[in-house]
């Protein structure tokens, strides 16, 4: 079996490469593609090329997993628009990192009665991150968008750590 790089998830789903996709429409498309591609529906016809059927079905499932979450969708968008861009823009502003570190510490030592407030704040931060990302992409400043994605990772991790603690 040779490794063929998977097509980007937007191509798999046949949707435009944009950040904002309608969730309901995306799900409907996933269900339709699954009906068309799933090996269970093709097995009765003795699908000639099993591996191809399998890979196509896996691509559909994996593309759905990527597109349904706005942040993984953003990563896929940047990677599709400019391969290597995400890797090339990993260096973040030290001031931002200092803030992120502070946030992580806040999560680590949060008092139980402050969890709800902190969760709301982290959620707001992530919403703001996404709004800023949308603006970056809108301006066509993809390197900034890439850094934004990397930066939001710290906020997502802080939120996940908080949920883990709670």
């Amino acid at each position: 079996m040779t490794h063929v790089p998977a097509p980007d998830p937007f191509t798999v789903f046949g949707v435009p490469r944009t950040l904002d996709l309608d969730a309901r429409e995306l799900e409907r498309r996933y269900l339709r593609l699954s009906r068309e591609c799933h090996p269970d529906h093709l097995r009765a016809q003795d699908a000639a090329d099993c591996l191809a059927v399998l890979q196509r079905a896996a691509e559909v499932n994996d593309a759905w997993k990527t597109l349904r979450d706005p942040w993984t969708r953003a990563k896929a968008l940047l990677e599709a628009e400019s391969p290597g861009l995400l890797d090339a823009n990993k260096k973040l502003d030290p001031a931002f990192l200092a803030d992120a570190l502070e946030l992580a510490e806040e999560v680590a030592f949060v008092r139980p009665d402050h969890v709800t407030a902190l969760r709301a704040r982290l959620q707001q931060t992530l919403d703001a991150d996404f709004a800023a990302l949308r603006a970056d992409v809108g301006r066509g400043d993809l390197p900034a968008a890439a850094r934004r994605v990397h930066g939001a990772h710290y906020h997502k991790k802080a939120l996940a750590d908080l949920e883990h603690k709670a």
Partner: protein
Amino acid sequence: MTTAPQPRACPRLVLGIDLGTTNSLAAVRAGKDARVLRDRDGEPLVPSVVCFHPDGRTVVGRAAKALRLDFPERTVFSVKRLIGRAAAEVQQEASRLPYRVAAGERGMPRVQIGDQQWTPEAISALILQQVKATAEQALGQPVREAVVTVPAWFDDAQRQATKDAAQLAGLECLRILNEPTAAALAYGIDGSKDGTALVYDLGGGTFDVSILRIDDGVFRVLSTAGDTQLGGDDFDELLCQRILAQLPPTSDPYVLQAVRAAAEGLKIRLSDAERAELELDLGNRGAVKLAVTRAEFEAAIAPLVQRTLDCVMRAVKDTGLQLHELDDVVLVGGSTRVPLVRARLQALTGKAPHTGVDPDLAVALGAAIQADVLAGNDRSLLLLDVIPLSLGLETLGGAVRKLILRNSTIPTSVTEEFSTGVDNQTAVDLTIYQGERELAQDCRLLGRFQLRGLPALPAGLPRIAVTFLVDADGVLRVTAREQRTGAQASIQIAPTFGLTRDEVRTMMLDSIEHAQQDYLAREAIDTRNKAEAMVRGTQKALQIAELPPDQTYAVQKATKALQKLLAGNADAAALKAGCDELTKLTATIADDVISSAVTKALKADEIR
């Protein structure tokens, strides 16, 4: 002239078979409705019992069950507990059975009847043959294909053994289907009702919970969780202990068997009555007289019921949904008749459990529906199932990097890039594990293979793409390929091969109990790897970067300090501090040669 209208091309008939621990049955779907197939007396259930009569006959089903007391050592039941497992693993289980279980070839369990040995597959095949014969007689035509159900937590060896049993019985098994998924299909048969359903399946010996989303005929399993060693038998066991406490200590199998039967009877009566009494006269072996109230029984089983609710919560959490977002709660399995189970589940979910389909028949009916889909008769329904345990690769230091997470919809595939950990390394070992724990030693080893012919390059430079591909039956294929040279290797393995039910359960429980400990151990390994890569990257960068002497000196000093920490086996916190120190220095250097070289070294995870 009147002739009966000829049916158009006769639809392919595929049976749905619930091969149960206690009872088995078949169902079939023609058109929209699935129905169970009954014998001449109108009975759908075939007891999963085989009696090897001393007169040479092999008796299966109800007739065999009737002989159970006459020939206890020649009557085989609960063979589902043995199938696909190793003799050593079922030893304790077998010690409670009245028939003898011996270790056969390759450590597989064999049922010993007189001087003959039977494999669990062969005995299951006899049960399947009886189910098939009953079905064929009810249908008036032969059948050659089937979908057979198993608990969601059955591992690959158990699934494969079940498939083999079907083949021995003259049935081609088109799919091994998870029992809770099948039950959900049976409840959602009208297909008109979209929503999210939780299936709670508490059988005699195992517990499964699955959460499904139904959208216009597409049944998507969102998550599954379970406990392979928790069921109604454990409720019985608690009552047994109460009864045995009133008897002199004994290991007499006759007494144990009688007490077990009495305990089961008590449990069943307590489902309807608030209080049940027991009078058990064992002749010269003793006598017991006791009364149990439902409140006492419920207090005793409450911790077990709580364990099932913990699984429910885990399954819900894995879907990312909230409890109130569930539309339906479906009960499957005889043990869901216990009132406390219903009450606690209802209290947790806030939903009255669905009771529209007989919990004993739901699994077979659902299997018949999936059978009809696989036969190509119904393209309006589609089932999307998930893989129950995560799959990953061992990385440097004995950590497991998960490539495919549990509850991923199958088929699925993931490709990730790895690199080498040593300069001029020309081969890497790829070791594949399954489980939820962070360290390889705590997960189940699935297979190992080697990728050779790597170009001799400094550590971290070769780019090795590793692809995991899981098909619709849950079988894993792994491919590794070096990107520059195209060197390539692959292996196809079953994802849970040889994993015992005990192990699955223990692995799941362990991953919860040890989550914190694992996290720290994993973090320590990660930090160490990162520090080593950082030292290497910085040293290389210093050779090529033209830095002012004072900066070179500062970086060298920090690198040496970190090296010293590594050599002295410093803890994760100290290593982290050392890394941070070095990062601070390299990050502030105007020329970012160093930081880019370090980043590069850190980019790829290293494979041993």
